[in-house]
């Protein structure tokens, strides 16, 4: 397993897409700093009476929300780039224990995505604190617990991407599903009649951050929200169930 992990780490490090994905993450961290500066500027220009009505999304969580998609794509590419190039044949020839290969990929993808998510969350938090200073803008209260959870959800998205890529063996197909869960399904769910719209919405991965923090359902597009323990279980299921299915599929199917 150590050998497989080391090899997969080497692969991830030497894939061009890894650099691009991390570049996008860095870009959005910078963009959040710009947004914080703009908000501070706007706040300063408002008459004091209207300042209390100004609200801005939690910037660390917004940045992590972007990471969901970007690291989801990183997870997809970790396996589909092997299918599209044919490298998978070499990979599974030098290491015929296929579940070990998938576990090693999951390990390195999870570590990179978790690191990216937490670094994003806390860098943006620090930058926003520095820029916004002591201006009491709504939405900028530091929720450390929620930022930690958002970083974990980034990791779950990456694992989901890896699993979907393994199951579908297609970059485009897997990215469409990841993007769908990220933003398209949340929009569609609002069209579903109640109570099902709420019920489905509260199961979506991006809804889980607030639900785990115990603040789900307030002002949320994701519906009324699950209790924290149930939300944790759903989050774990998002990571584990598709990965298990991917492991079975990879072990059973012939390599194309």
């Amino acid at each position, binding site marked *: 397993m150590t050998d497989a992990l080391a090899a997969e780490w*080497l*692969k991830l490090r030497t894939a061009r897409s890894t650099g691009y994905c991390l570049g996008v993450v860095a870009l959005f961290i910078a963009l959040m700093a710009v947004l914080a500066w703009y908000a501070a500027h706007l706040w300063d220009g408002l008459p004091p009476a209207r300042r209390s009505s100004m609200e801005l999304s939690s910037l660390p969580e917004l940045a992590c929300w972007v990471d969901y998609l970007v690291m989801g794509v990183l997870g997809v590419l970790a396996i589909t780039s092997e299918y599209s*190039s*044919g490298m998978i044949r070499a990979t599974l020839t*030098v290491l*015929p224990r296929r579940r070990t290969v998938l576990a090693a990929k999951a390990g390195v993808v999870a570590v990179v995505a978790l690191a990216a998510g937490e670094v994003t969350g806390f860098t943006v938090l620090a930058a926003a604190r520095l820029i916004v200073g002591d201006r009491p803008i709504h939405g900028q209260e530091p929720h450390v617990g929620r930022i930690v959870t958002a970083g974990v959800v980034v990791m779950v998205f990456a694992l989901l991407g890896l699993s979907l890529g393994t199951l579908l063996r297609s970059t485009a197909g897997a990215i469409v599903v990841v993007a769908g869960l990220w933003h398209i399904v949340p929009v569609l769910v609002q069209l579903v009649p109640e109570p099902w719209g709420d019920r489905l919405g509260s199961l979506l991965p991006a809804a889980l951050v607030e639900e785990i923090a115990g603040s789900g359902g307030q002002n949320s597009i994701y519906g009324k929200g699950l209790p924290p323990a149930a939300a944790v279980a759903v989050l774990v299921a998002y990571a584990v169930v598709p990965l298990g299915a991917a492991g079975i599929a990879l072990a059973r199917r*012939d390599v194309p």
Partner: protein
Amino acid sequence: MTVIRARAEAGIGPPLRSAGGPPYGSVGTVIEVTKLTKRYGDGLAVDRLSFQVRPGHVTGFLGPNGAGKSTTMRVLLGLAAPTSGAALVTGRRYADLRFPMHEVGALLDANAAYGGRTAFDHLRCLARTNRIGPARVAAVLEQVGLAGVGRKRISGFSLGMRQRLGIAAALLGDPGVLMLDEPVNGLDPEGVRWIRELLRALAGEGRTVLVSSHLMSEMELTADRLVIIGRGRLIADTTVRELAERFQRGVLVRTGRGPELARALEAAGASVLVETDGALSVKGLDPVRIGDLAARHAIPVHEVTPRTASLEEAYLALTAGSLEYGAAR
């Protein structure tokens, strides 16, 4: 096993092997395919195929396009599961090998590499899974003539360079068994010759070498043994020499005293045909006997030429009935 691994880890290439028996495995069968069947939907890619490959020879694995060569190799390498039957390498299923690179080196598809990586990184990614260090990676790059482009991205490589890279990957673990699918595709004449010599040298060291091709002319120069398949079935399991003899078309003899020599040859048991230009086409006697007989009868002979059908013709004759994608005739 441990010895081989330690050597590969140390980054030292295969040592020169002196005569004194093959150093790899037993002298018996190394690759063993038994009643192998592989079905895809309605089609049979491989149909009750059985053959063995022994060490110390280059074995050519021949057949027209679509005959099932690649499928058989994919099953041998554990990439595809057999519908029935077995395909074993050194007596085991490939999937059961712990560090397969040290036992089997494979080249399936030269394009099967992620183009964004450098040649060196590509090989390192493969090598690391079997505990092979960077020094060995550098050594095989040198061996296949890619040392100068090791730091270049594979996307810029020609097909010939990719073939060399694929062969480098197969050699990384210094394996006793090599399985190469169409390794000469895309190589220039110099490259074709290089691989021919490499394969013969590897077999000479006692390794088992299985090379697939649809070109008889290439295998004629490279292989000692031939496994010929068509439509997933075994057509011939033979040697290059046997195949040539099987399609022997007699000996051409020219002499000024044709009728006299013909009588002498027929008396010795040969069948003789007189060709339009007066030359004799002799079957049933080899050139040595013919020469001796002519000398005994004091008949001057101008030419004695054994006429073999080219192996290409022999191969086409064998596989004619099993062309998957033949041109209409």
